[in-house]
């Protein structure tokens, strides 16, 4: 009995738990690594899920846990909601799904930080700093993600919401938060007497900050925001790890924080803009005036489906460039069908996908994968651009700014310098578009006036379906 007692003493138990946490961290790392290649990605996700499972199980075995009843209630209800949401969500609704899950991670970290704050009687600075960070980052992740959810699902306007003095209000809010942080960490209740009052003030301010940060951001900038919020939810978990001095929270949170930041950076680079510019400029709310592009408009050459069919039928290489418009029109399945018919007809078909096309990083890839397009046909601009001159037909479906040659040619254009897909250099380019309205950024697109461009007006799905039936007859 003596021996058993030593083996299962509290100290050994703690050590064992920590060893399992290290194992879980290793599984997260391998999982993320495997997510980097389409062949191994699914397994990688499973590996990472295994890591999570063992981390949760070993935590539940912690001897100091007294009440299991409510933990299980939370686990069961949470799993139920998670399973239903994950199974029912449509692929087109994926951006808002990711946003809302992000928000849940944020609020969970906030609650953990709050619970620990109300408990920590000793008020040690080493604990108070991470508590404050957990609450603030968790809080703004939560409301920021909810606003992003609203914008992506169309419940609130996707347009940037800009008002006068916005920077000032955000600035004042930041200063207020900073003061609250000092009050919470260093002064410890000098101005506000009760702990819970400080806590509520911190939660309220961070909630407000989350709303104010995301409201001014327009639809097409959403990929950046989603990636950034993803990073924040990791950082919140990481900060929570410092609150309870737990290594697995720190490792996992930091991995997610880093990955989110890298994605954010990739998205910003793909738009040739700085993060500050995306967050604070309300891009797209100001319609650019002047600039040479607006004056040098030429003639728009429309084309009908029958003529477009004849050209496509003779094409030996076709590049399809999808944009958010394809998602809106739900045209991905018809597009895949057209792609297959073109291949049967002897054309080489590739899809050129710009990193910021759509409303979240990789949005178009998911939609086309859902429609059963083989992933080795999904190319990045750098793969397509070098050979675009020899491409017979480019089919631009609901994309606008990512194919705007002004980014290359017009130094006065707001998107000048943004890497684009050079469809204007292809032999022929069809642009599928509802009308001549400018894209999200409100910028004229000289592509529409190029001599080798033909406009196929109408709903993208209808146009594609008509092309498909032309091929079938």
């Amino acid at each position, binding site marked *: 009995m003596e021996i058993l007692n030593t083996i299962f003493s509290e100290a050994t138990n703690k050590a064992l738990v920590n060893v399992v946490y290290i194992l879980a961290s290793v599984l997260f790392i391998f*999982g*993320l690594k495997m*997510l*980097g290649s*389409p062949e191994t990605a*699914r397994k990688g*996700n499973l590996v*990472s*899920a295994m890591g*999570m499972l063992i*981390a*949760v199980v070993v*935590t*539940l075995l912690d001897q100091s*846990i*007294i009440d299991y009843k409510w933990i299980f209630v*939370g*686990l069961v209800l949470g799993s139920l909601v*998670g399973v239903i*949401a994950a*199974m029912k969500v449509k*692929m087109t609704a994926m951006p808002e799904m990711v946003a809302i*899950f*992000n928000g*849940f*991670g944020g*609020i*969970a*970290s906030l609650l*953990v930080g709050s*619970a620990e704050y*109300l*408990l920590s009687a000793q008020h040690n600075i*080493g604990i108070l700093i991470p508590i404050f960070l957990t609450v603030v980052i968790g809080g703004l992740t939560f409301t920021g993600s909810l606003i992003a959810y609203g914008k992506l699902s169309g419940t609130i306007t996707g347009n940037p919401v800009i008002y006068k003095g916005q920077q000032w209000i955000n600035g004042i809010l930041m200063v207020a938060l900073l003061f609250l942080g000092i009050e919470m960490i260093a002064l410890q209740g000098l101005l506000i007497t009760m702990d819970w009052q400080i806590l509520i003030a911190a939660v309220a301010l961070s909630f407000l900050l989350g709303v104010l940060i995301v409201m001014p951001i327009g639809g097409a900038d959403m990929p950046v925001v989603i990636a950034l919020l993803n990073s924040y939810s990791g950082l919140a978990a990481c900060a*929570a790890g*410092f*609150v309870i*001095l*737990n*290594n*697995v929270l*720190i490792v*996992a949170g930091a*991995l*997610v*924080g*880093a990955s*989110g930041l*890298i*994605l954010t950076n*990739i998205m910003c680079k793909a738009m040739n803009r700085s993060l500050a510019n995306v967050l604070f400029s309300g891009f797209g709310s100001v319609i650019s005036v002047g600039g040479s592009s607006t004056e040098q408009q030429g003639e728009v050459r429309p084309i009908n489906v029958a003529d477009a069919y004849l050209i496509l039928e003779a094409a030996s290489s076709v590049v399809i460039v999808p944009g958010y418009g394809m998602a809106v029109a739900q045209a991905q399945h018809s597009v895949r069908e057209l792609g297959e018919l073109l291949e049967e007809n002897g054309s080489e078909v590739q899809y050129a996908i710009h990193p910021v096309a759509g409303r979240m*990083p*990789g949005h178009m*890839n*998911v939609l086309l*994968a*859902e429609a059963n397009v083989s*992933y*080795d046909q999904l190319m*990045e601009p750098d793969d397509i651009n070098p050979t675009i001159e020899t491409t017979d037909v480019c089919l631009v479906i609901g994309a606008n700014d990512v194919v705007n040659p002004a980014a290359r040619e017009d130094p006065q254009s707001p998107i000048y310098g943004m890497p684009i897909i050079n469809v204007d250099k292809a032999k022929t380019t069809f642009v599928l578009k509802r009308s001549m309205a400018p894209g999200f950024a409100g910028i004229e697109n000289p592509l529409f006036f190029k001599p080798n461009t033909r406009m196929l007006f109408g709903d993208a799905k209808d146009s594609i379906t008509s092309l498909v039936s032309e091929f079938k007859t």
Partner: protein
Amino acid sequence: MDAVLVLLLFVLVLSIFLGVELISKVPSILHTPLMSGANAISGITIVGAILTSRGENIESELSFALGMVAVFFATVNVVGGYLVTNRMLGMFKKK
């Protein structure tokens, strides 16, 4: 600062570098699954949520309740995140 904290900061810094190394080579076709998979990992805060019901904590009913709500939200994040990522990745096929 005590030794544990310094050690954890060390872990933090290394993890950030590791994260940067791991992710920077992900092809853009996998950006969405990567994001939602990483998002599921950020649900690791579930461990912290469970630990709010440690013996010494149970006397404070409010913080216990907060912790249990955190368990719920973190579980949605974890379970939903992994499942939806799995569903998405199942669609990525090569012909």
